[in-house]
């Protein structure tokens, strides 16, 4: 993008006066920063919600059919007798509330014989489903793409807003509709969807097999359809923004890696999500319109009665089309995290990223390979052995870019000046945890080894190391790092460190043992295995240990919340560039003014020019819109 564009031809976006009314400023705002915050807070709510559900699941596993502390007593339904006792008058007596998650007390002539408030069997499957769906579609993607993407992309490329601000607001409100739908499903008669976040038909398509399919399941499908639409719109928006609105001098090789990762992510969102939408619509038709896309002939009900369906579909079709989206979605979940970690690393090591071009190239490699590896989720699903070989090979290949990234990160740290301030610590732990998650993936890529591993806790450990240990740690680091730009104040460094330490410890204590559970053959998505399976008895002790660690992990997050919201209002005021960082957003005030930049900056050099020539000037950093010391020198 050449220099002679002035910023009044709309290239950087126009300056608009900030809306004053509360509604236009905070609710229907079309300012990318406000929309980013809206995404952030919605996603944080779902993070709490999904974490709570995870703890309830862990409780059921460690203490099967024991009442869940606090929640159980609060949320358990009243049994019929208790209702009668409470409302003697039959006319005013309310119907027994349907509660698909918790069990009610079991009474015998007026006395409680079995305490209610434990997780019901169907409740556990619903928790599994909702935890997965929410953490992926309502927490990680909205935070990474919605919050960080919205907030950072225009700032990083030196623009005043995204390309299509109104579409940006639209995509948030589509996301909002989706969240209302998925939460509303809890109040349905049959409860929420209960077929896992992968929602394999026929289970997810036939209400004969799972009573929630045609009600809660359909709502789940619609909700995901809306959120898919939302991410398509966001993807289109970001692609157009990054392609067209880069400030003068912001060449592709000068983009911060966060923005690069957002670009690749946007490609996935634009081209992969529609396929999910198609699959969802076919599933929806199967659920409510009686079509047969995924329903083969010869299905029988548990009473051995033939099912009144024409059949002729194929259950593997769903798995293929679903994973065609959902594997790229896995990279949507991690790539922006990698980008954030790279930025933090370079800033807190005071060194340029080692091998910037290789980093970008590996992300592009992931973009192309990411579309042809989905079958490794299906090695044992009945796909042909030849297909297994093909997908195994491509999967082996796609492990390479991640390896390159890890080694480049290490090389970036080598010989740097590594700060131990919390964002740095998060970045280092991101690398540590992502390494574990990536390495454990090789076991599953090896098809024969995958046979005992498949659908066990080993998988659970693997993707939690990637998505929690990887992405979420990068998110925490990013939030601490960009907090001044978000809210104009600093977070308490001490409490940030405490939160980091607790999270790091509790996280490893929770998820590392799961590898061993998996090697012990412990199936995933199974509520109270210990009540049934003899070969799992020795593992129960570890299950209890994991549950306790998980509770610790859950409660350590309260430290972060307290720190976050306290600092938002009472934290010390932040100067423009508290971390001595190079990228463009630090050249403007904190918090970022409504129009981002008074003048569209003219970019002089790459984002990671730390310690270019500290001896000439005292400073070890050069903002992207100033000349490097090296250039100054001559």
């Amino acid at each position, binding site marked *: 993008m050449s220099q002679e564009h002035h910023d009044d031809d709309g290239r950087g976006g126009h300056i608009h006066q900030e809306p004053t009314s509360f509604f236009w400023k905070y609710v229907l705002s079309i300012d990318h920063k406000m929309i980013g915050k809206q995404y952030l807070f919605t996603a944080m709510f779902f993070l709490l919600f999904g974490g709570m559900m995870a703890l309830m699941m862990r409780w059921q596993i460690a203490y099967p059919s024991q009442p869940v502390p606090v929640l159980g007593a609060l949320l358990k339904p009243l049994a019929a007798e208790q209702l009668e006792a409470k409302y003697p008058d039959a006319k005013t007596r309310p119907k027994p509330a349907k509660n698909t998650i918790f069990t009610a007390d079991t009474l015998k002539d007026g006395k409680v014989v079995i305490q209610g408030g434990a997780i019901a069997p169907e409740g556990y499957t619903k928790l599994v489903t909702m935890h997965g769906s929410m953490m992926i579609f309502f927490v990680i993607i909205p935070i990474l793409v919605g919050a960080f993407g919205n907030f950072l992309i225009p700032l990083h490329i030196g623009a005043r807003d995204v390309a299509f601000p109104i579409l940006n607001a639209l995509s948030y409100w589509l996301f909002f509709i989706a969240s209302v739908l998925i939460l509303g499903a809890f109040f349905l008669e049959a409860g929420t969807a209960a077929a896992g976040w992968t929602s394999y038909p026929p289970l997810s398509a036939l209400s004969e097999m799972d009573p929630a399919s045609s009600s809660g399941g359909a709502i789940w499908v619609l909700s995901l359809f809306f959120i898919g639409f939302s991410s398509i719109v966001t993807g289109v928006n970001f692609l*157009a923004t990054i392609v*067209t609105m880069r400030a003068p001098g912001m060449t592709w090789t000068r983009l911060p890696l966060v923005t690069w990762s957002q670009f690749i992510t946007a490609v996935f969102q634009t081209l992969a999500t*529609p396929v999910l939408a*198609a699959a969802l619509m*076919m599933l929806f038709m199967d659920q409510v319109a009686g079509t047969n896309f995924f329903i083969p002939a010869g299905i029988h009900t548990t009473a051995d009665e033939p099912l009144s369906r*024409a059949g002729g579909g194929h259950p593997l079709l769903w798995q293929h089309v679903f994973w065609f989206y959902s594997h790229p979605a896995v990279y949507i979940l991690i790539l922006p995290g990698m980008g954030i970690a790279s930025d933090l690393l370079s800033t807190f090591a005071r060194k340029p990223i080692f091998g910037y071009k290789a980093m970008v190239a590996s992300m592009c490699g992931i973009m192309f390979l990411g579309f042809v590896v989905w079958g490794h989720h299906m090695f044992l699903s009945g796909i042909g052995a030849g297909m297994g070989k093909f997908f195994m090979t491509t999967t082996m290949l796609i492990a390479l870019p991640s390896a390159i990234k890890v080694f480049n990160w290490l090389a970036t740290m080598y010989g740097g000046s590594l700060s131990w301030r919390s964002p740095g610590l998060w970045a280092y732990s991101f690398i540590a945890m992502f390494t574990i998650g990536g390495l454990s993936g090789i076991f599953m890529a090896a098809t024969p080894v995958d046979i005992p591993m498949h659908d066990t806790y080993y998988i659970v450990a693997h993707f939690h190391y990637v998505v929690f240990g990887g992405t979420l740690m990068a998110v925490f680091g990013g939030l601490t790092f960009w907090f001044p730009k978000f809210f104009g104040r600093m977070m308490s460094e001490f409490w940030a460190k405490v939160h980091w330490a607790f999270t790091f410890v509790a996280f490893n204590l929770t998820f590392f043992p799961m590898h061993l559970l998996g090697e012990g053959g412990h199936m995933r998505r199974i509520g109270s295995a210990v009540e049934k399976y003899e070969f799992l008895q020795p593992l129960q002790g570890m299950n209890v240990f994991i549950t306790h660690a998980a509770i610790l992990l859950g409660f350590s997050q309260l430290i972060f919340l307290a720190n976050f919201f306290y600092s938002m209002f009472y934290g010390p005021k932040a100067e423009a560039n508290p971390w001595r960082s190079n990228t463009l957003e630090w050249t403007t005030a904190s918090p970022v003014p409504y129009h981002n930049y008074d003048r569209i900056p003219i970019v002089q050099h790459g984002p990671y020019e730390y310690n270019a020539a500290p001896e000439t000037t005292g400073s070890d950093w050069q903002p992207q819109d100033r000349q490097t010391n090296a250039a100054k020198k001559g």
Partner: protein
Amino acid sequence: MSDASAHAAHAGEPGHAVHAVSEFEHAQSKLGMWLFLASEVMFFSGLIGAYIVLRMGGTKEVFDGSVLNWKLAAVNTVALLASSLTMALAISAIRRDDIHRAAINIFLTISLGGVFLIIKAIEYSTKFLHHITPGTNVFYSCYFTMTGFHGIHVLAGLIVLGVLLVRILQGRYSSKNYTVIENTGLYWHLVDVVWIFLFPILYLL
């Protein structure tokens, strides 16, 4: 979709007459439209791809296009092609600041799209009268789903075109500002493209 209207609403002022759109903004929102069309292509790829593989795995008796009325569908094809033509003519008219021609062509486009939907409705109703539903067999599942979603796209296009017609008659567009019409045109042609594929693979094979 268009950056221009976006800014009109953005500044809170009513998008009043001829607000010039810079060449950059025109190109930018066209790129946005193309990206959106790419995702639309992927959406129909999902449906059509599923149909192709199901058909390969299915039997001749089930997947038999001759049970559908190809004559009506052929008429529909011509109607959509014609509407694409009038759409293109409308755009070249607005490029020449020929508001009158543009309005007439948009109107023709809308009516041809309407014809398409009416014929589609006749097709559906005859099927339902013979108690043929999406659940009859997997071929009809594909048929109703694909044509249904295509129909929804046509309907959406018609609504947008209706709004455009009103705004054109209010003289809000000119050779300086016709991005919205151009983008709507692109979308309309995509709907046409999808049908060009659906017609043979559903009705003729």
